[in-house]
């Protein structure tokens, strides 16, 4: 089993790299064969990745996020799943290169940081914790995907406004499609993060009944949740156009990064497990 898990550390980044190359051919050369092959190949690699994560969980008998490597692999998996969903929903493959390249980067990092031993920690045996972390990762991955689409949307928007026609022009799907894909990712992220907040509150109330609300990471997460919620409501009410929603999506990602990096570095709280 351990040999299989170790070999996955080589196979998975390699497989994501190949899929990213296929998507690169779609984006840069509009290659018809790559267009046909890229999406099924990505789905196959996602299944392989799922098998790897299940293998990790079975082998160590705990939720596979107990090390940096496992957590990063989980992030890569979540981004890949969200992208595959958004691609399927939007029936648009020309943007895959950017997202799958991101997945490859996370998985490569995970493989580089992989260690033969994993610490056995009680918290990773708790099923509610597993659901909470899974939903949070899925939510953050969806917001990352939404931010990627927001970035591409803003690029094309600027090109079309200024009549400048940069490298992106002509290679991206239409603005309407980019906006739709961004919104789908935002909604998926918001639903997942809502689930993560609810399960987290339930779990924290059980373990830390008095002081969990004062945790800076929880505060940052609630702010993130509120930003995305507001953006979706304003878009729904048609007060906001695509450009404002895209900017809010990028602002939301900045808040997430702040909550993940800055809060961990400068504040202390119970909300740190690695």
């Amino acid at each position, binding site marked *: 089993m351990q040999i299989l898990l170790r070999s996955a550390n080589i196979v998975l980044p390699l497989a994501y790299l190949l899929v990213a190359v296929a998507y690169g051919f779609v984006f840069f050369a*509009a290659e018809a064969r790559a267009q046909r092959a890229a999406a099924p190949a990505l789905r196959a690699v996602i299944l392989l990745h799922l098998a790897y994560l299940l293998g990790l969980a079975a082998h160590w008998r705990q939720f596979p996020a107990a090390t940096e490597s496992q957590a990063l692999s989980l992030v890569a998996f979540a981004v890949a799943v969200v992208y595959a969903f958004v691609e399927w929903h939007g029936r648009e493959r020309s943007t895959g290169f950017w997202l799958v390249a991101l997945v490859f980067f996370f998985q490569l990092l995970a493989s580089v940081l992989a260690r033969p031993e994993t610490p056995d920690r009680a918290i990773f045996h708790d099923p509610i914790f597993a659901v909470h972390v899974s939903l949070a990762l899925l939510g953050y991955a969806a917001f990352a995907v939404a931010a990627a689409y927001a970035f591409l949307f803003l690029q094309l928007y600027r090109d079309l406004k200024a*009549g400048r*026609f940069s490298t992106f022009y002509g290679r991206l799907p239409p*603005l309407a499609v980019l906006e739709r894909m961004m919104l789908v990712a935002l909604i998926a992220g918001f639903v997942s993060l809502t689930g993560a907040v609810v399960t987290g509150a339930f779990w924290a109330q059980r373990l830390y009944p008095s002081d969990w609300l004062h945790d800076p990471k929880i505060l940052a997460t609630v702010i993130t949740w509120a930003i995305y919620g507001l953006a979706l409501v304003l*878009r729904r009410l048609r007060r906001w156009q695509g450009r404002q929603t895209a900017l809010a999506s990028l602002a939301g990602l900045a808040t997430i990064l702040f909550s993940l990096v800055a809060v961990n570095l400068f504040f202390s709280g119970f909300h740190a497990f690695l």
Partner: protein
Amino acid sequence: MADAPDPAAANGPSAPGGPSRTAAGGPSLLLLGIDFHTVPIELRERVALGQEEAEKTLVHLLARSAIAEAMLLSTCNRTEVLLQPRDEEEAYRAALQLVFLARAPEIERPGLLYVKRDHGAARHLLGVACGLESMVLGEPEILGQVKQAAALAEAVGAAGPVLRQLQRSALVAGRRARQETAIAAGAVSLGYAVIELARNIFRDLDDCRVLLIGAGEISRAVARNLAERGARQLTVANRSPERARQFQELFPTAAALPFAERLAAIRDADMVIASTGADEPVLTRRQLAEAMGARPSRALLVVDLGVPRNVDPEAGRIENVFLHSLDSLDHLIQRNLKRRKEEMPRVHEILDQEVAHFYGWYRGMQAEPLIASLQKQAERIRRQELAEALHHFPAASHAHLDRLTRSLVRKILHHPSNRLRGRGGPEHLPRLDLVRELFRLDDADGSAAAAAAGEIAAASADESPEATAYPEDRAGSAAAEPNAKPEAE
């Protein structure tokens, strides 16, 4: 007087009765043509052939004993005749007279007509199909026109095996160039530039509501392009109801509005095309801002085709309004043309491959009679040896031995046959006469097989004539005639 072949320079015509081939091992081809590079439109119009005329001309060409196969391509930008001659000099004279001089005697003037031969002619046709020779580089219509020319030659019976295969190669090259390279990518005309912009904003042109302010010629041309690409919901707003009515005659599904109602119509539109002769803007920033405020948060593409401008340039600052003028459309067209030019080396690679494929096919065709002889000889030896050996074996094993020896012969001859057909690299084809000598194939069997293999077989038995040199083919003639197109080779 120009374009007449120089008989003194010819090293002898091909053998009469069959199509000729060149010293390089390819079929003899002769192409005569005029195009927009060499001839002004007035002359091109006179030379251009309609379907019926082209049909008649092909019949007349084929009636000449010097011409084995013929094909005529006539468009607004070029008229070309491609021949597989039996006698190049005679074929040249016939085509020159029938296709060109009969309609425009001025074509005799130096530098107007170009002549290409053999490899140059084959490559030229493929280049034409790829859009490399078109006025607008990579334009797609030419591929359909080559297809039509091929169909006409086929219908008249003017296409034989050589031109048929060459046409096939041309169509394959044309399709590959468009699929594998960006030679046809991006809009290079005003109408299509508008469509390209729309396609970068909206998911589907079918669902786009288009408001055309002005019903003049430009407006109609853009509307035609949009309708061709699926835009069905057209509305025209024009000062003169008469012009609007004329517009509706051309586009019966289009709605017409009084000019004053244009602002209300913007609330429902996805695209506004303004092309009026007004001196003042027909859409101000304030008007557009009000219209945008009254509609759901949707993008609006505004294309200003008026000179002076019909839309206040400041309107481009409004959120979700994408305002483009003639200048930005021209910028887009120039960018696309540059990208197409950058694709030319890749298209030339495709041309090289398809021309090589055509020549490989031709050499393979030449080898067919030889392969037939080889197989016949091997089969004769097999039967002979088997007959002598069979009585040593029990009768029950005879069928098995027969199968075994057949299989042996087939497997032994498989690779040589493939090599003779040119598969696996036509550049290393074995010399057919050497193979013939090695296997002693010049006996009665070989001759009979060769005779049965038809026209191409006969051609392969001919001595290779050296190329007939025409004045415009010779090195240096292009320098002497600055208007002449250089050989594609």
